[in-house]
């Protein structure tokens, strides 16, 4: 065989390449170790820290493999390229296999996989309620609806919509499910998913099935709850938030909730509504279910053009006259209708002035 051009396979050039790739790997592995994940995504729960460690662990061992596969590929492609002065029928090395090498790249990854599996094995129980920790936890419920999250607290009569408050440092068991057909008047039960990226937690909300997850919020702050399982028209907008409060703040919020349950909410002052601001809000929040078009052009709910002066539909879904104040009442409290559920202002994330703006905008639709 003609081998004079390329020489032996394990020559100085090869070892230089191995060393260069080793240095690149080492630098990247160092970057993996010091990479400030929390600058981009806070670690706000007890489980997020070990999950991030596991994530780093994977990258730490993955990076050299990626560097060597790509690096060797590029190095070989350049080093052993067919040069113009090589004979046309030149062939390469006649080595067919190498037991030791093949054993190494079979056993090496296998060992890494075992390590990863063992590491994962110890983390899996952390986000499910098992043993002592679970016994002392506060148990709450999270229920997915089209298209908002409902939270039930022990000791609170009414549910809390979309914005969930948790006290920092208190273990929580969250029973996760989705509304069943009988609860969700719309068109039947669907899947949702409860995902808080800052908690590194996700659990599908499955109708007919309650899955408990377990964690302790560790950082005060406001984090997003994202639905990550397709649930229909409103899926793209199905966002909630979880507010992790200090213990006193949480107690104050909890007391206010108990109070709110006792006293009826005040009517909303509609004076000074800004139709332009209302239009922006309408496009962002209402168009999931409503068109700015005549009644018959339904989506989930009716089209809303001419809402206040449609002779065919003088009454609102709750039977009241279609006056601005009554529309504001529906925006505030929500409604159950034949077509579906209109969530209340809390679920929709509306303030009283938002409602005034929306009503002002709705008046401009004819």
């Amino acid at each position: 065989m003609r081998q004079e051009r390329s020489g032996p396979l394990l020559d100085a050039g090869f070892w230089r390449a191995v060393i260069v790739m080793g240095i690149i790997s080492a630098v990247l592995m160092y970057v993996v170790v010091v990479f400030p994940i929390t600058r981009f995504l806070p670690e706000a729960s007890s489980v997020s820290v070990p999950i991030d460690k596991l994530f780093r662990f994977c990258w730490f061992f993955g990076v050299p493999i990626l560097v060597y596969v790509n690096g060797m590929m590029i190095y070989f492609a350049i080093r052993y390229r067919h040069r113009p002065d090589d004979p046309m029928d030149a062939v390469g090395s006649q080595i067919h296999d190498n037991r030791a090498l093949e054993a190494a790249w079979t056993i090496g990854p296998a060992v890494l996989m075992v390590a990863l599996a063992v590491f994962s094995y110890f983390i899996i129980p952390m986000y499910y309620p098992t043993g002592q920790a679970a016994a002392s936890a506060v148990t709450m419920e999270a229920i997915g609806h089209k298209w908002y999250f409902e939270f039930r607290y022990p000791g609170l009569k009414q549910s809390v919509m979309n914005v969930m408050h948790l006290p920092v440092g208190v273990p929580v068991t969250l029973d996760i499910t989705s509304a069943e057909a009988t609860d969700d008047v719309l068109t039947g039960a669907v899947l949702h998913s409860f995902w808080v990226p800052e908690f590194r937690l996700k659990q599908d909300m499955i109708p007919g099935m309650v899955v408990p997850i377990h964690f302790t919020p560790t950082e005060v702050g406001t984090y997003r709850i994202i639905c990550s399982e397709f649930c229909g028209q409103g899926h793209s907008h199905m966002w909630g938030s979880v507010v992790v409060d200090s213990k006193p703040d949480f107690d104050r919020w909890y007391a206010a909730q108990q109070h709110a349950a006792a006293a009826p909410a005040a009517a909303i002052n509609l004076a000074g509504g800004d139709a332009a601001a209302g239009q922006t809000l309408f496009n962002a929040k209402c168009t999931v279910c409503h068109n700015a078009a005549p009644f018959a052009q339904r989506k989930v709910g009716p089209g809303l053009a001419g809402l206040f002066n449609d002779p065919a539909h003088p009454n609102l879904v709750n039977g009241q006259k279609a006056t601005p104040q009554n529309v504001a009442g529906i925006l505030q409290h929500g409604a159950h209708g034949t077509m579906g559920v209109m969530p209340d202002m809390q679920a929709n994330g509306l303030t009283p002035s938002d409602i005034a703006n929306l009503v002002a905008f709705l008046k401009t639709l004819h």
Partner: protein
Amino acid sequence: MDHNATSATNTGSAVTGGHIHPPPDTFIKKYVFSLDHKVIAVQYFITGGLFFILAGLLAELMRAQLSGPNNHVLSVATYNQAYSVHGSAMVWLVIIPLLTGGFGNLVMPLQIGARDVAFPWLNMISFWLFPPAGILLFASFLYGAPEAGWTEYPPITLQMPFGTSMWCLAIFLIGISATITGLNFLVTIVKMRAPGMTYTRMPLFVWATATTAFLSMIATANLSAALAGLFIARTFHVPFYDVAKGGAPVLWQHVFWFYSHPAVYIMILPAFGLVSEIIPTFVRRPIFGYKMIAYSSAAIGLLSFMVWAHHMFTSGLEHWEQFLFMILTMTIAVPTGIKVFSWVATLWGGKIRLDSPLLFVLGFLSTFTFGGFTGILLASVPVDIHEHASYFVVAHLHYVLFGGSVFGIFAGMYYWWPKMTGRLLDERLAKWHFWLMFISFNATFLPMHWIGLLGMPRRVATYDPVYASTNLFVSISAFVLGASMLLFLYNALRSARKGEVAGPNPWGARTLEWMIPSPAPYYNFKDIPIVLSGPYDYGKPLPYANISQELATVPMH
């Protein structure tokens, strides 16, 4: 004994040589309802190519919608339909038919020295189930196309308009078609190899096709059953998935993924196979670790049936189930790693010609290895809990299906185009195509990992404005990626008129398909060849007897 032709008598078909049907004489018999595996392959390529363009355009529409938050390029419903049909079409109408129906049909019978597949008539039937399925799927836009993604998780799919039933029917037809093809190919490979072609002398593409055929036969039958189940659940309200009557939505996820995880390997194993063909040809040396590559295909095939629930780590599985499926999933990393390392080792000490097929293969190695690595992240239950159903998964699956299968398809196209058409593609355009595609592919899908980790869920028509700049960059890259495909289209059309005549063996390869004229004549082999040893011994005389000598020389382009 290994090089002794008489060892051939217990394998392969010594007698099929006897009887040759006359070639078809009418246009319909020759080009439409053809029984010839080579013509059927071209039919698959053309049909699958058209669906590739359509499904690709849907992807560009989606990226237009996602170029900014709160865009109104598409309505929410249309957007949902676009990604559902895009995913379904790319999986079932593009990658699977092109790799199995296209390359499998074109190459496998030639590589084993057969005159056709075992059941040419069934082969024709399975092709003709494919265009109606595609038309049904795209026509579903007229009746409310499916919106719940290519996985179509109930119960929401039970509430969708008629289009979802059309989806069921379309994929059911594809399922039947793929099952028949799998059965047909497996019989062909077991029974019709040329004398002397023992299992360890088979080209690696044939190994990959055999494994794929086995998976198609078993898993795809299950797909048909699952889709029939969803269809009757929708049409006759049979309560498999209806919670109100005691059904279980998660049941669908089990039966669907019991097909769809093997399907991942149906989509990647043939690409592995053609990578294993192209590398030794252009590196001019024997493939490193033939047996390990061959057996790892079989191992992946078997393991792929035991890992389906790793798609369901957030679906409320028991802990022991999560752990079991995690372990089994990680096991697959080992045979896959063996393949990747063996390919890289084959480059070591070669005489490498960096022609377009090899470029695409190197691109494949780079992107697929990264996709495989993110796959290991997703296999670990705790990491998956965070990443599941986010854009990280979208990025991962495109790294393996686009970076793997589609790069593989293009590598195979550039490699076997001369065998299929008799003409060469323009090499300069091909290299432009590769670099443009490779760079824009990475620019499109690499950033998706990042925004997924930060909290962008998949299957959304709009998103939190914090991801706006990344998404704009991704969209622009996606348009470039789409445009790069035009280079291939132009190159293909150009070769019909101006392409250089290829000759039987333009790459100097050693497998049997290059031992006959290009394009292959109607009955492939004038005489059935006799195989004396394995196909990758570059530098040694050709291991075949009974093929005409003027073709056995190795011309170089």
